[in-house]
């Protein structure tokens, strides 16, 4: 398996998904070597984590998103180059995979997202190993409809072309792959991400946000959203809908948890709309502070313009939130007890917010309903799907090449 991150060295959902999927696959008898582009102790009994290079986990993303080179901290373990970009890391990763495949012949190479597709193509092209490309997100999701980095588009496209089979995390993602990359639908299977109960103990004690607790007692409804403040998340629509909702039902507070390039614009916008009293920016948070956001809020909104899956929605549901999710978010395809809207439909979002704030029956229906749903979504089902796909592509394996 070719990946870029595993918890705790993860920056987002990709690492969580890779870890849980591997665990379920291993339980089903899969023998997994998981290659990561950095050096760290993982100590997982169910699979072997292999480091492709000596690199500190913190810099493996290099300058992918800034497209400039960054300084490497001079750890004595790190490879000798003075500077690395993500392209350098990918190149070293590919060289490692090449060496690895001279020695081992896996039945299938399962590559997660564009970061590892070049290595996957190498395995397919030069070693005849069947390639499964797992799409957690496309560059069209990350960069907005027509934007994105052309180089990444190119790599993504080639990976999808070379793959024997593609696994997409939602129908929405599959549609993008079909429509934007022109891949035949029959080559793509949908396997929704799963959900695992968090292992560690967590108790909400109300200490993190006492101001909000006070507002709640006064009858305020707390609405939250969590994520990067980027184009992909559709937050301007959410802000305008918030203003419309507050004009009808003033006792509402909106929590914007996260950070990103749109932060200042969003703050200005809330002032222009005259609702800055009702909007709270938490800045970037993680751990208990993040969990507490989910605990204190009544409603969670996922306003994304394009969201391949959206694990945060499941997290919010787990903490008893009613969910409002755009129709452009993959997670909405597997949940029924949610309100869905088109990301541009500010009126519908505002209407849903007002109704939820004013109707205990609606909140309870959404909350109770979702409890039966999110826990049913299991990683074992994703693993089963992967095994089916493996069985299908295994016959493509060529021993003499």
């Amino acid at each position, binding site marked *: 398996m070719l990946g870029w991150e595993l918890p705790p060295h993860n920056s987002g959902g990709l690492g969580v998904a890779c870890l849980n999927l591997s665990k379920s696959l291993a339980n089903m008898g899969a023998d997994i070597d998981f290659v990561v582009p950095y050096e760290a102790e993982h100590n997982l009994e169910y699979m072997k984590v292999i480091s492709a290079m000596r690199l500190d986990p913190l810099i493996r993303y290099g300058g992918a998103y800034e497209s400039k080179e960054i300084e490497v901290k001079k750890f004595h373990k790190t490879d000798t180059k003075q500077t690395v970009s993500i392209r350098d890391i990918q190149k070293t990763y590919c060289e490692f995979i090449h060496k690895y495949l001279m020695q081992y012949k896996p039945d299938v190479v399962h590559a997660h997202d564009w970061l590892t597709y070049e290595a996957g193509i190498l395995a397919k092209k030069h070693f005849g190993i069947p390639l499964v490309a797992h799409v957690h997100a496309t560059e069209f999701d990350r960069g907005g409809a027509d934007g994105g980095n052309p180089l990444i588009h190119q790599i993504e496209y080639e990976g999808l072309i070379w793959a024997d089979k593609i696994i997409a995390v939602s129908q929405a993602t599959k549609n993008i792959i079909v429509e934007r990359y022109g891949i035949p639908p029959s080559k793509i299977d949908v396997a929704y991400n799963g959900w695992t109960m968090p292992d560690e103990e967590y108790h909400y004690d109300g200490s993190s946000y006492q101001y909000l607790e006070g507002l709640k007692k006064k009858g305020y409804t707390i609405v939250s959203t969590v994520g990067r403040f980027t184009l992909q998340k559709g937050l301007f629509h959410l802000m305008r809908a918030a203003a419309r909702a507050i004009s009808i039902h003033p006792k509402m507070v909106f929590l914007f948890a996260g950070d990103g390039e749109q932060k200042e614009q969003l703050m200005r916008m809330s002032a222009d709309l005259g609702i800055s009293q009702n909007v709270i920016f938490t800045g970037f948070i993680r751990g208990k502070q993040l969990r507490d956001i989910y605990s204190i809020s009544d409603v969670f909104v996922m306003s994304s313009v394009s969201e391949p899956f959206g694990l945060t929605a499941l997290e919010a549901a787990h903490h008893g939130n009613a969910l409002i999710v755009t129709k452009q978010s993959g997670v909405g395809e597997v949940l029924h007890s949610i309100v869905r809207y088109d990301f541009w439909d500010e009126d519908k979002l*505002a*209407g849903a917010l007002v109704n939820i704030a004013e109707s*205990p*029956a609606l909140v309870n*229906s959404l909350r109770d309903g979702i409890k039966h749903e999110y826990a049913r979504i299991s990683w074992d089902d994703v693993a089963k799907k992967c095994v089916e796909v493996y069985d299908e592509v295994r016959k493509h394996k060529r021993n003499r090449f």
Partner: protein
Amino acid sequence: MRSIVLYLHMHQPWRLKHYNIFSVDHDHDYWTEKDWYAGTNNERIFKKVADKSYRPMLARLEKCINTYEGFKFSLSITGTFLDQAEQWAPDVIDTLKRLVKSGRVEIVAETYYHSLAFFYDREEFEAQVKLHQDRIYELFGVRSKVYRNTELSYNNELARWADGYGFKGVLAEGWDKILEWRSPNFVYRPEGCKNIKLLMKNYRLSDDVAFRFSDKHWKEWPLTVDKYIQWLEAATLRGPLINLFMDFETFGENIWEDTGIFEFFEHLVYRWDRDKDNNFLTVSEACDSAEPTAEISMPWTVTWADTERDLSAWLGNSMQHEAMKAIYDIKSEVLATGDETLIEDWRRLQTSDHPYYMCTKYFNDGDVHAYFSPYDSPYDAFLYYMNSLRDMRGRLEGVTKPKRSKK
């Protein structure tokens, strides 16, 4: 004598358009969907179903009435259906008038608005039964003698009410849990009633046509008239009355014309009528045909819906309860206005289809498409419903207080 008691139900609700929160207080028209192709466009749907089902099936029924002297049947037609038919398919009403005039088509009583008022407000319920009776008299010149409640919902209390009102019969689902070892093919007496009689739907034979006829995975598919007649005759060994109760739209809308359902029906009437031991009865005639065999008690409410045969599709979750409570809570204020449009809107919102669209119970079986709804989700149905109620409360305030100044 072996008798088929055929009873068909005709209903169309007024679907709420996608009525968003920003329409509240200035748009009081909840029913006119501008988008012709929207699932909530009442006119389009009525005209579509009229073409696919009402017109072709009524034509067959009329042909059967004219051809076979012994053919008779019963119909229940809701007020909301009649109002829509008058606007969008007046010829359907003309055909119904001719059928009733033949004297062999009986109209069954029910609430005008196909509502659940019986379970919420007895006074409003009786008002709706009277409205329906009057409308039927005005259009067809007859008064109904047999009662059916919305979705065939029935319990002992309903039977006692119908008995006291003076109906000669009442219809209910012939559900196994109530009948136990008994057959639905007899006339029964509801427990604690003096005069009224109870007719119970033979759901197996009814559903063979209404649900299974077009099901190619059914082991009896295709259902031929020969086979069905054999089943009917075998069933009469357990009592003389075969109560076939179904939705009118079974013919042409739920089961499409290309399955041969119309031909099946016509041929069935021909074959049944041909045998001297067979006849057709209307529901009143069926009630008169025999003295009650035994008493039947239904302490809880039974309907003709779902495998549960209860009201859980309408009143199974908290949204449905809240919506229904909210609509009946404003009754006295609404009626006090004397404003006909307002009262009409309020009553249209009582139609049982509204809470039905809010049903969430199928989420548990994962059978999301088991329930037809013009909305994307039950939550959307609830949102639009509560928005319209908000507007209605605003209208009520406007009647008693000077209009608020809006920004």
